[in-house]
């Protein structure tokens, strides 16, 4: 085990002794993901912007804003009235909601209060925002209604000591009702065969983040073939295998070192994807780690196999880059596979990059978990077994 770790450590020490390696490990992938993401219109929040002016400032108004914040449709942007009006005029958002002062008092007195909702004419997003506001009011209204009924019933059983006790009971009832409504079972209505919406296969930010990870991790892992070629050229492989180091220990050490570094790189790039592009990699950590590990294994195995076909470091370097770039392109790392002709989509299933992108899209695009990525992870592990077998059988020290 110590020898495996020593080889892994040495390989990375040699690899990162060149300052240029940091450029490819971290700097360029981050720049590329941000540039590609922004160039293709990535936003950190893809929801519809809703300008909100809270003139009331009370608890009920805050509750309404919180419900809207949790919406999957609108992203609340709070401003003063003048600022909100200016932004609306500048078309920075398709809708504006003003919560007037006196909302809490009116609600306590059982009076009706009118919220002001302004929307851009003929704008689909504005319609969606209006529906989101209505849904939020409905949700909040149901909680208020339940709390009111509860309050009346409680007062009939035993009158409240004072107004503070009454308010506290009402507030507690409202919170509980809101929590219960939020936790209610999902209703599933099957209306017909599922139709794939564009957003199911394409969002610029997820595409940029996943595509960058696959491309920039795949190419260096293919370049493990350079390690083998370099060791042969230097004569260090000959020296290593004349020491009490078996072929298996040597291969495991080299593979462990590069796989470990690749996993770290993927986690760092996923972190940047979350921070800079708002991509969710972490809602099911097991799914993310599984697909990263399976992809890393398939890639490093491919590199190992490639290393047995090349003679020099130059050959390995050129071949890794050419194969890596073309497999990344065909695997859907730069453009969604769904944009390719159907026969191409089927043909590229022979590439590990395709399965890696499919698995990663399950996570970041569709928000799915471990169960969803198991087929892709299985396919990638299958690639790993085949590539490793060929690589180990063909491996020679010179």
């Amino acid at each position, binding site marked *: 085990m*110590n*020898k495996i770790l*020593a080889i892994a450590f*040495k390989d990375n*020490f*040699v690899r990162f*002794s*060149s300052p240029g390696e940091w450029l490819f490990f971290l700097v360029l992938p981050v720049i590329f993901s941000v540039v590609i993401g922004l160039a293709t219109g990535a936003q950190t929040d893809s929801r519809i912007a809703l300008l909100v002016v809270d003139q009331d400032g009370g608890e009920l108004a805050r509750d309404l804003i919180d419900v809207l914040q949790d919406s999957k449709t609108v992203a609340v942007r709070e401003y003063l009235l003048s600022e909100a009006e200016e932004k609306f005029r500048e078309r920075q958002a398709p809708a504006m909601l003003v919560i007037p002062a006196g909302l809490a008092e009116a609600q306590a007195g059982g009076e009706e209060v009118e919220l002001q909702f302004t929307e851009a004419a003929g704008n689909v997003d504005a319609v969606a925002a209006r529906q989101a506001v209505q849904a939020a009011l409905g949700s909040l209204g149901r909680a208020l209604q339940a709390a009111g009924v509860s309050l009346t019933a409680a007062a009939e059983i035993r009158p409240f000591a004072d107004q503070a006790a009454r308010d506290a009971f009402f507030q507690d009832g409202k919170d509980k009702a809101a929590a219960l409504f939020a936790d209610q079972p999902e209703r599933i209505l099957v209306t017909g065969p599922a139709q794939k919406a564009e957003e199911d296969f394409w969002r610029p930010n997820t595409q940029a983040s996943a595509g960058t990870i696959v491309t920039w991790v795949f190419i260096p892992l293919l370049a493990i073939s350079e390690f083998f070629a370099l060791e042969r050229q*230097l*004569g*260090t492989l*000959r*020296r*290593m*295998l*004349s*020491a*009490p*180091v*078996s072929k298996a220990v040597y291969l495991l050490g080299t593979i462990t070192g590069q796989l470990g570094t690749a996993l770290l790189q993927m986690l760092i790039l996923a972190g940047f994807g979350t921070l800079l592009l708002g991509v969710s990699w972490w809602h099911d950590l097991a799914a993310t780690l599984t697909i990263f590990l399976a992809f890393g294994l398939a890639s490093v195995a491919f590199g190992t196999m490639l290393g047995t076909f090349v003679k020099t470091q130059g050959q390995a370097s050129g071949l890794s880059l050419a194969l890596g770039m073309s497999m990344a392109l065909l695997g859907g790392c730069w453009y969604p596979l769904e944009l390719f002709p159907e026969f191409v989509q089927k043909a590229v299933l022979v590439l590990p990059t395709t399965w890696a992108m499919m698995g990663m899209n399950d996570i970041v695009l569709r928000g799915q978990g471990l169960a969803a990525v198991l087929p892709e992870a299985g396919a990638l592990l299958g690639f790993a077994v085949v590539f490793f077998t060929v690589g180990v059988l063909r491996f020679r*020290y010179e």
Partner: protein
Amino acid sequence: MALILEVQDLVKQYPGAAEPAVNGVSFGIRRGEVFSLLGPNGAGKTTTIGMLSCLLKPTGGDAIVDGHSVRTDPEAVKRLIGIVPQDIALYPSLSARENLRFWGWMYGLGGKDLARRIDAILETVGLTDRGNDRVDSYSGGMKRRINIAAGLLHEPKLVFLDEPTVGIDPQSRRNILEMVKALNAQGMTVLYTTHYMEEAQELSQRIGIIDNGKLIALGTLDELTRLVGRQDEIELKIASEHAGPELAEALGKVKGVRSARSEDHTVRLVADDANASLPEVIGVANARGIKVIGIDVREPNLEAVFLHLTGRALRD
């Protein structure tokens, strides 16, 4: 003396090659000796080392290192031997210390023992001051010395030095030869391959001459030179070009001189014993008034042995 290495009819046939690279080589190395395997490039020296260091599987035969077969017990053999390959088998972007530490780890060394050995071996190769510098900043000779250090770090019983002086300057070459002598004086057994006969002559207690994959001669320097008979070559430089033929004819009649021929200002003699014949040779020249301005005596060497055995010069 007991053998630490016994090579038994070793054969290596590469796939597709018409002839075996090594063809039935047998020899033994005694504990504590320097044994040289001398032969031209392509003779089979490195292939032999490859099989002895368990990198290449022999097609036939076997080699036993301190009781362990390279065929059946390679892991035990690897622990007993040290390899100094012909190439500089080091990581250029690492320092000498980092390289040595890594190779120490590969032999299962570690901790304070490894640190002590690294300090000691750097001292032995005279690179203590440069130990923390990257190897790619070293001269060719310094690289060679660290290359040797990496093969000796684990204190092997038997070390294989595969042409360790190829492509370096005379001073570095001298340093390496002195280092080999010093290591041998400390009791280390060395198998030294070279195509430089001077190195083999200087270092070795015994020499094996290999050519076209076959061991064609084996013995001490004396034993080998006896193969060609003890004939020395005397070269006389004379002042007068025209006196050459006359002098050659006269010297051909001197006792112990086998042949004499002249060429420009030079007369070349082949004698049974140069030391015995030289006084009379000078006397004959003086008697004829021919001024001798230089004398060069060459005793038989491995070059002559190789020429005698193969009909080719060693460096052909």
